[in-house]
């Protein structure tokens, strides 16, 4: 099946500031794709370009087979969007806004019976009082309004920009259940987030961006392949860590060792550990947090300036 979103070398500048600097993003139809990056990395800018709210300065982008800028109105009938910072009209109630958003998408003019049931189900699931005026809602409740509107729609593509940043853990769990159900139902989801556990729990594939550029993309399995394994071992005797190759961030506390090991060096490191004697041993794949830290601290992609400056 064709890709739902395809962006190549996307560029966007705001005055002198570069927001996107050649970003690549491919979201396959029917997958949940996590879009990760620290604050200011360009996640929201990318989504706003996909929505046709911003005009790209360079690169190619297509969404659902159309041009997000030129075909914005037609494409919007096939997608639903949840902004990161949901602003609602203070004098309208949550229920009115949910219905209005559906109608603005174009599928509410003939409210189908199934949709109404789904709407009601979601309102109960997310524990929202739809008769309250929006000005009385907390950030989390405003977010619920946008989420319910998006999830109740029949859109093929959901663009979710940090959709859970205001939700409590219980609601976050409800959100995860809903997104899992959406994937079963064949919908495509682009989920921007910096809550990594969320991406880990939900995403089929991940794109990590930093400073407006894609630094890595693939399935989580593929990315772990490129990275290290966290090793936590209790040994029967002392070990000189400095003699080990491929070990990073080692912490030694008596006979206890915690470190990160390059996967290529794992075999050799384990051999050395068992040679000393192992009491307990835990090896686990890195969490996305660890991947994240690695990408944004010690493996920064060179910036434009660094690249053109010749090495000393």
């Amino acid at each position, binding site marked *: 099946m064709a890709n739902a979103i395809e962006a190549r070398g996307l560029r966007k500048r705001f005055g002198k500031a570069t927001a996107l600097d050649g970003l690549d993003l491919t979201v396959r139809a029917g997958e949940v794709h996590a879009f990760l990056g620290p604050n200011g990395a360009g996640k929201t800018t990318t989504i706003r370009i996909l929505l046709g709210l911003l005009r790209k300065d360079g690169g190619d982008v297509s969404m659902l087979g159309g041009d997000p800028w030129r075909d914005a109105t037609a494409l919007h009938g096939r*997608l639903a969007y949840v902004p990161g910072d949901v602003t609602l009209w203070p*004098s309208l109630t949550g229920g009115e806004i949910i219905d209005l958003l559906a109608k603005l998408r*174009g599928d509410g003019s003939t409210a189908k019976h199934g949709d109404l049931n789904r709407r009601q189900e979601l309102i109960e699931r997310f524990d929202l009082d739809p008769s*309250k005026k929006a000005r009385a809602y907390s950030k989390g409740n405003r977010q619920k309004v946008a989420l319910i509107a998006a999830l109740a729609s029949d859109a093929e593509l959901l663009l979710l920009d940090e959709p859970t940043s205001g939700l409590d853990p219980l609601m976050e769990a409800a959100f995860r259940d809903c997104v899992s159900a959406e994937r079963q139902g064949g919908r495509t989801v682009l989920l921007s987030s910096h809550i990594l556990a969320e991406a880990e729990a939900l995403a089929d594939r991940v794109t990590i961006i930093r400073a407006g550029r894609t630094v890595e993309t693939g399935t989580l399995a593929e990315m772990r392949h490129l990275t290290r394994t966290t090793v936590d071992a209790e040994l029967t005797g002392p070990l000189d860590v400095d003699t080990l190759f491929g070990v990073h961030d080692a912490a030694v506390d008596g006979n206890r060792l915690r470190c990160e090991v390059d996967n290529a060096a794992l075999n050799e490191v384990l051999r050395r550990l068992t040679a000393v004697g192992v009491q307990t041993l835990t090896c686990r794949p890195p969490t996305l947090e660890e991947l994240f830290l690695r990408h944004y601290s010690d493996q920064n992609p060179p910036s434009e300036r660094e690249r053109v400056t010749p090495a000393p």
Partner: protein
Amino acid sequence: MTTVPAVRMTKRRTLPGSGALTGTGALAKLALRLDRIMLPAWVYVVVIGVASNAYTFVKLYKTASQRAALVASGNSNPALLFLYGRLNGNSVGSLTAWRYGVWGALFAALMSVFLVIRHTRGDEEAGRLELIGSARVGRQAPLASAIVVAAEANAILAAVLCLVLPVLGLPAGGSVALSLAIGTCGLAFTGVSAVTAQLASGARAARGLAIAVLGVAFLARGVGDSAGASGPSWLTWALPLGWTETLRPFAGPRWWVLALPLALFAAGTGLAFALAARRDHGAGLLPDRPGRPAASDALRGPFTLAWRLQRSALGSWAAGYAVLFAICGAAGKGIGQLAATSGTLTKEFTRMGGQSAIVNAYLTTLMLLAGLIAAAYGVSTVLRLHAEETAGSADPVLAGAVSRTRWGLSHLLLALTGAAVLLAIAGLATGLGYGLSAGDAGGEIARMLGAGLAQLPAAAVIIGVAALAVGAVPDASVAVAWTAVGLAVLLDIFGQALQLSHWALDLSPFTHVPKLPGGAVTATPLVALSVIALALCGSGLVALRRRDIG
């Protein structure tokens, strides 16, 4: 170990500025900085209004007998009494206080309402006060700083008036009294709006409530003044706007009357502080009623959304138009008698209207006013597009299957049709008011309806400028659009008096509107203005399609 936190606690308590008012000064400074354009503009408008009226009276009514005749006819015309109040004495000062005392006080009150609400509930609704509240800022500091800023603004207004009026040749004592009357009315409404800011559920409602109190005050003193000796003349004493009259600025001032607005200010602010201590952040004391749990069919797209968001504003404007223009129309019959008291005034009216009939000139001026105010309404309605965009609530609409053009049109069409409705109301109400007092209500209504709607193309040009600004220069749109309104007001209201050249006057679209009623109806300028307005609106929509949102 356990004593350490205790010591810290006491230390913290003795730190200077840990009370409820901590940070008031800093917040007030911030507010003054944010209002550095709007505040001088308000002061300027009020001062120009008062001063230009004083100047006109000095020039037009040179002799005491001319003024005495004006006083006699002014005090016997109920509509004029309603609009301006009672004339106390026949000095130029008294005439100035009559013509602009109540209205100057009304403007000062409006300025105070906007200031106080903007810096209390406005900031609260926008979420800014939450951030400020978490800093080293006392619970009552935002309210206190808003009151301080409004009080300062009124003090500045009174001081400037105090300096300007004697320069125009008015007696110093009366000038001080009139300036203080206007300034203290602003203070009184600072107190009123401080209270409504605690009661209402949001900024809009708080502003509406305060303006409703102002409207009641205006009506009460109008009824008190115009009902005659046997009527409820105590109403003039009951509420702030009447106090500018009962102070009698240029006719032996009753200085003690100033204690009334000051007392209202003190009582209002005191009550506001007491209420604020009981109120939750972001909520009013009056409960917010639950609404519909689902949208009705009346809310189904961008146009119905624009209507829903702005209908109550249009309703208030329409009600204001109906009352104001009915009264102004009814006052028309007295204009002929009034103008006969001054030969210069007759000439002036003829020159201003370009018509021979003085009443027609008066009605023409009324319709010009209706047109200018309708343009202001339209501009505020179109600028909602920009407000929605910066607030972020345009995003969910545009992320729906709604084109930029449709979204832009939603508020633009409301502005244009709203302006048309207001102008129709102005025409109908003026015709009804004038027709009932002068006879032939039916004929007058038809005649004035046409005269009112003739202003629409000119108002549409100003609305078009706002639309183009929102589309092409969003960041400057508010400034550009209101400058256009301000320029039109300056050229058409003060242009003649300032003796501006013809090409300068021709810049305003309202200069080209046929002088109706009475003048010849020529289609050419109306068609030309309509074409220009359409072109401006169209290019605004095209520009909106081509730029980034947000």
